């Protein structure tokens, strides 16, 4: 009897405790948010520590202008720099924020921080994407070159096409639609509005410099097709298309063509800078091929209609040489300004051929890779040759040994570079 009373008492206490706990739990309990409702902030990036030895080319007017008024440098120079890329991505439901920054350290002085990308996006559905801000676009199918560079792309460096680049201030809207048909599997339409960069008092720009670019993409019968259009009141009107497809399990081919109406080109005529208008087509043909030895080849031919002919390039070099020989600081300064504004194209001439061969883990060297590429200027028969040996000793780290050699006569593009050759060691760390 005594035992049953005790049991009853314990049961009552236990029940009261459970009820009280439940009441408290009901009041303060909450549901753990499911994955897709959780805001997500991610950071990533890499640090490139680059040490280079450069052999100067005293015959080059670029060398002369760059080192004008400096103590005569040695034949060999060294350069040490740190390139720091820091990325941040925030996402909450349909809202996204993207930031990609770049800063370079060469010596102890205030470091400039560049925003390569800085935009907010509304991903309304898998079909609609909208963003506002500075965003990088990379239209076209070319690996080293692209004829559609005048639309929304920042010109890439054919010596390092995979390098991150700065974007453009823009408003971006994309509609993307899959189609269940045998002919067309996917269609998308992109509109990009590009406000001009602030030029007036570093704050304002002319409203008429606003431009717009459109792109229609289709995956048609296993072929990627893009049709592009770019226009603005004060801008060169451009029409273009590109194509790529896999012909075999180890062979991809691609091509691009772009027509520019009234493309502005700077030339040196009678020792003065002239701006002419030129209409015409730029185009590219390329392939990617993997052979039985596991070597991947990338080959591209590029015709750049807004580039210079050999004689036009020689006039440009003569113009720089004449100003340099005058030893006039004002002319020297003017020449430097011309180099960085009117003649700053990465591919200044008309016809190029690019060939790259790469092999992962040659001779069974673990974590290593070997590649070699050449860029051949068909107009003046100058070229650069650059082998690269890579090694990844640990996860998220990479070491590159990267020499480059430039060949050609003094009046050629690669023969007139300010350095005859360079050897670089890259130490790359990812996080």
């Amino acid at each position, binding site marked *: 009897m005594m035992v049953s009373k005790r049991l009853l008492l314990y049961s009552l206490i236990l029940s009261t405790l459970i009820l009280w706990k439940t009441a408290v739990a009901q009041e303060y309990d909450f549901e753990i948010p499911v*994955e*897709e409702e959780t805001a*997500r902030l991610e950071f*990533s990036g*890499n640090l490139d520590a680059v040490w280079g030895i450069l052999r100067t080319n005293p015959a080059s007017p670029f060398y002369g202008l760059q080192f004008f008024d400096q103590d005569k440098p040695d034949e060999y120079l060294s350069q040490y720099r740190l390139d720091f890329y820091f*990325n941040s991505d925030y*996402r909450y439901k349909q809202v996204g924020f993207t930031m990609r920054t770049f800063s370079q350290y060469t010596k102890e002085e205030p470091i400039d921080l560049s925003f390569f990308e800085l935009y907010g996006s509304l*991903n309304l*559905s*898998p*079909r609609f*994407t909208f963003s506002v801000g500075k965003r*990088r*676009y*990379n*239209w*076209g*199918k070319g*690996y080293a070159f692209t004829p559609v560079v005048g639309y929304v792309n920042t010109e890439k460096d054919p010596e390092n*096409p*995979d*390098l*991150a*680049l700065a974007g453009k201030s823009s408003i971006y809207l*994309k509609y*993307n*639609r*899959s189609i*269940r048909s045998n002919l067309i*599997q*996917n269609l*998308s339409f992109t509109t990009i509005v590009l406000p001009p960069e602030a030029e007036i008092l570093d704050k304002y720009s002319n409203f008429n410099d606003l431009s717009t670019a459109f792109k229609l*993409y289709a*995956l048609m019968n*296993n072929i*990627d097709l893009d049709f592009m259009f770019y226009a603005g009141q004060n801008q060169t009107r451009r029409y273009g298309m590109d194509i*790529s*497809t*896999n012909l*075999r*399990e*180890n*062979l*991809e081919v*691609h091509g691009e063509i772009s027509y520019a109406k009234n493309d502005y080109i700077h030339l040196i005529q009678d020792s003065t800078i002239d701006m002419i208008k030129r209409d015409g087509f730029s185009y590219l043909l390329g392939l*990617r091929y*993997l052979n039985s030895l596991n070597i*991947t080849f990338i080959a591209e031919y590029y015709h750049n209609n807004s580039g210079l002919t050999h004689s036009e390039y020689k006039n440009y070099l003569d113009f720089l040489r004449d100003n340099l020989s005058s030893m006039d600081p004002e002319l020297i300064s003017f020449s430097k300004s011309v180099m960085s504004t009117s003649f700053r194209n990465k591919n200044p001439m008309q016809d190029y051929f690019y060939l790259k061969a790469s092999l*992962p*883990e040659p001779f*069974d060297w*673990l*974590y290593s890779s070997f590649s070699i590429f050449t860029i051949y200027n068909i107009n003046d028969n100058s070229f650069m040759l650059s082998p690269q040996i890579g090694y990844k000793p640990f*996860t*998220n*780290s*990479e070491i590159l040994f990267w020499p480059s050699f430039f060949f050609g006569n003094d009046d050629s593009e690669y023969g007139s570079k300010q350095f005859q050759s360079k050897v670089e060691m890259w130490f790359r760390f*990812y*996080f």
Partner: protein
Amino acid sequence: MRKNKLFFFVILFSFSTFIWAQESIPVSVKGNAILKKVDEVLAPGSMEYYRKLINEEPNGDKKEFIFYSVKKDRDKVAMLYLAPASDKGRATLRIGDNMWLYIPNVGKPIRITSMQSIVGGVFNNADIMRLDYSAEYDAVKLDESGKEYVLDLKAKTRTVSYDSLKMWVIKKNNIVEKVECYAASGKLIKTLDFKQVKDFGGGVVRPAVIETTSPLYRGYRSIMIYSNIKRKKFPDEVFTLDYLSRLAELR
């Protein structure tokens, strides 16, 4: 007596017809039916899953990758690299014979070929973004040995990575045990061993581990481990070039 004889002939005729009908089902039809069942076991419809890829090198060192993948229909696969940091954010898409790679730095998808290997090791791109076997191969020969089917498969087109496959399948549950991949010359390129059958829930019971070796990569071994396989429906637009940079939204 005549009735009995007639009855006997009718039975004999029916039985012979049945036997003949059974034997006349072409091997390819039966083999392809088995192949479809194999696909249903390995990748039952639209789903998402995580995978860890371990590339073992001859010196014993390992490289590891983690992928988030989504699949729809027989021929659509998209994959996002989650680790290591050096590859994080990369994404690949496969629609039939078409294959693209998106690298955040480059900012656009580029076409890649199925025989290349983005991750190194024994697995090539087609292995990592494998479609349903029945989407790429036809059964041309079927052997039965005890508890197994042995299928000889031939590539439907020349763009498929391997010219032919030899596949061992357990009869009772249509789970694939082993696949040998051959070049057009008849040379063995690699062997895939399917191991550790696991119940992932939702009716998904399949091997959780695939070990791959190749006579072309002596001393190398690649191991793919499956995790968190869930049935999930996706709009078709997820499997487009424009969505590659947004794949992380699906997680």
